[in-house]
């Protein structure tokens, strides 16, 4: 257990009559790029919220860095960089204020790296967050998630906010760098091609249950049909059926 950055055991969560997570167990090894895939409503965000301590484990347990994220939020959250699907950065802040404010919470904040990211993302420091486009806001969110060089980077559906160029050219490179430095990335997506491009471990979630969780290479190998290696999309459909498969990007 101590080897795992995230250890989830028999986690069950219900919202009224709906079971969002049903006996989910997983262990995320350090240094892995972990792709969490599933259709909308499959339970990806619910699982991520448990890892961040935003949801309390009703049944089962969640440990991050060996700690309970609900009981010890400061110790856990100070080591996590998080890009929310909701893109809820405060609109009244300017970009430089967002950086100044965020820096106060993370002792490991790297000013040089933050400025490098700001320039790479072409963010005007005097621009108000509310005046940024959706893609620019997601870049600002990614900046503050990365600039303190977190031990665990959690990206919840980054595809829903980041534009294709950032996703393809920057996000991929950033994720690779983090993994090479021995840090861990967990990112959820319904875009299987994107996951296939950067993840080295994939967990498929469907109706709150983990239907497949293994290193990507093992998944491909075990689903090989003769010489042909099927795509992640085809593997997903084979496991959960075509109706439940995520829609391809428009």
């Amino acid at each position: 257990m101590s080897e795992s950055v995230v250890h989830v055991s028999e986690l069950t969560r219900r919202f009224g009559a709906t079971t969002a997570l049903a006996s989910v167990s997983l262990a995320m090894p350090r240094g892995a790029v972990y792709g969490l895939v599933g259709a909308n409503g499959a339970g990806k965000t619910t699982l991520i919220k448990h890892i961040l301590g935003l949801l309390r484990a009703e049944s089962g347990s969640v440990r991050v860095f060996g700690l309970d994220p609900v009981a010890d939020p400061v110790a856990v959250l100070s080591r996590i960089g998080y890009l929310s699907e909701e893109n809820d950065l405060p609109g009244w802040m300017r970009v430089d204020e967002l950086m100044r404010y965020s820096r106060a919470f993370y002792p490991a904040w790297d000013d040089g790296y933050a400025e490098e990211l700001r320039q790479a993302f072409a963010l005007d420091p005097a621009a108000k967050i509310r005046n940024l486009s959706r893609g620019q806001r997601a870049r600002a969110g990614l900046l503050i998630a990365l600039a303190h060089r977190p031990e665990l980077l959690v990206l919840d559906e980054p595809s829903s906010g980041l534009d294709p160029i950032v996703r393809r050219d920057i996000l991929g490179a950033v994720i690779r760098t983090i993994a090479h430095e021995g840090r861990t990335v967990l990112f959820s997506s319904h875009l299987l091609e994107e996951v296939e491009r950067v993840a080295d471990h994939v967990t498929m979630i469907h109706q709150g249950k983990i239907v497949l969780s293994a290193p990507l290479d093992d998944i491909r190998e075990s689903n090989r049909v003769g010489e042909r290696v099927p795509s992640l999309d085809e593997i997903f459909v084979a496991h959960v059926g075509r109706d439940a498969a995520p829609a391809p990007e428009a």
Partner: protein
Amino acid sequence: MPSPALAIAWEFRRRHRWGLIAVTGYLFVVASIRFLILEPGEPVLVDSIRFAAVVSVPLTTTFVYLLAVFSFGFAGDLAARHSMYPARMFTLPVTNAALVGWPMLYGTAAVAVLWLAARLFAVWPSGIDIPVIWPALLAAALLAWTQALTWMPYGLPGIRLIVAVLCLAALDTVVLLALHFKAGEPTMVAILAPQVPLAYLVARFAVARARRGEVPDWRGMLARPARNAVLTRRRDRFPSPARAQAWFEWRRHGRSLPALVGLLLPFELALLWLAKDAPAFVFEILFLALITPPFMAAFTAWTVSQPNPQVRDSYGVPPFIATRPLTSAELIAAKLKMAMWSTLAAWLVVLVAMPLALEWSGTWSVVTEHARRMDDAIGTPRAATVVLLILAGFIVATWKQLVQSLHIGLTGREWIVKGSVLLTLTLLILLGPTVEWIIDSPSVQRALWNGLPLILGILVGIKMSAAAWIATRLDRSRLLGDRALVLGAACWLVAVLALYGVLVWFFSTPFVAHYLLALIAILAVPLARISAAPLALAWNRHR
């Protein structure tokens, strides 16, 4: 839905059903007092306090509530540049006339009916001719102009509030002047009747602009100073996460109260120029100015624990805040600190503006004369203590208004928030008849006075039990450490003892027992509700 008109009406009814039920309940209560409790034809002598408790305060609160409902004020951002009209409705396949007309029709009809119902059902003092038509028209005009002015896009943030306050105050002033010159009902109707169509045209223009995405931008004029500010501030660092969070809270919520007080105060203090020949009126105006900060704090308090309309779960803690590496207690501490600075800033405005207005209006001598008489009557130390206690009381009341509902709003549970609002409205509605019943019944007054120690003792018991339970929960959930709990309890005890000491010194009379003063001091210093705020936030943050 058979038509857009019914769909819009349904939305108002569905979203605000509990508030509208409470309004109906209020009208039912005042009607019951008039038709079931009072004898038919019995002359009614209503003093100003009872009338305020039963009619004017609940009626004004209800009117303000309806203004917020029908101008979409609960969902919009008053300080923003863009229109407060919900953008989601701009894509409906209906004309601008329908988008404006139906909410305006429903709103003006609602406030007019509110007045007519209050006029018919409430207890009004005998011998006074209460008009029927023009107050209904005034209410409709105020609502229509509020809609027009809040739906208009503006070039700068915050301008909406200033424009709305000035325009609505101007309309009120015209009406007050007309009354001053004893204008009759036809004149009042002639002044007010064109207001609704005029407001409709302005609102239609506003919604048409907002629908086309035309939001004027005058921020260019301020761009250069802002950019310089960026460069100067870039060097600054927050010394701690707690300071960063306090800055966040101040920027997010702290300036609303001083700004609102600063907007209202000039209008209130301007009345001093009219009161030169009526010294008694000077103290009424000063009292009005002094209750402005706590009164406005009650309105701004909901923003301090405001649910975030920008995120999917509008009652929950936004993920940006929930994922700050701070404990829930530290997040609350930042809110309490912001509330303290906000209170002090608001009172600084009052304490600077009030002497200046007294001096410039020539009414300073009225106050000094009164102070001299008070000095002669009770001595300088007691007079100074009374003034300082009153001032401290107002300042603490302002802060308390800002923070006392945190434990409700921060739970993030819609049923708790709405249930609390409903309970408060119900208590407000029942308060008037209860006060009236007590005032009218000497036997009840005697019973209350004899039972006062028991009542205070029970209240103290409830408060201390709640505080003990909360402290246990805070300790068990590790939201606060032992040291912080002991320090908090010690600070509270010091405040209680200090207040008790002042009360004992001030009320040095054998008619008031010291233990009663101790009970009052315990009840006066906030403890349980503020201590519950970290628990409420943690319950919301870790659902």
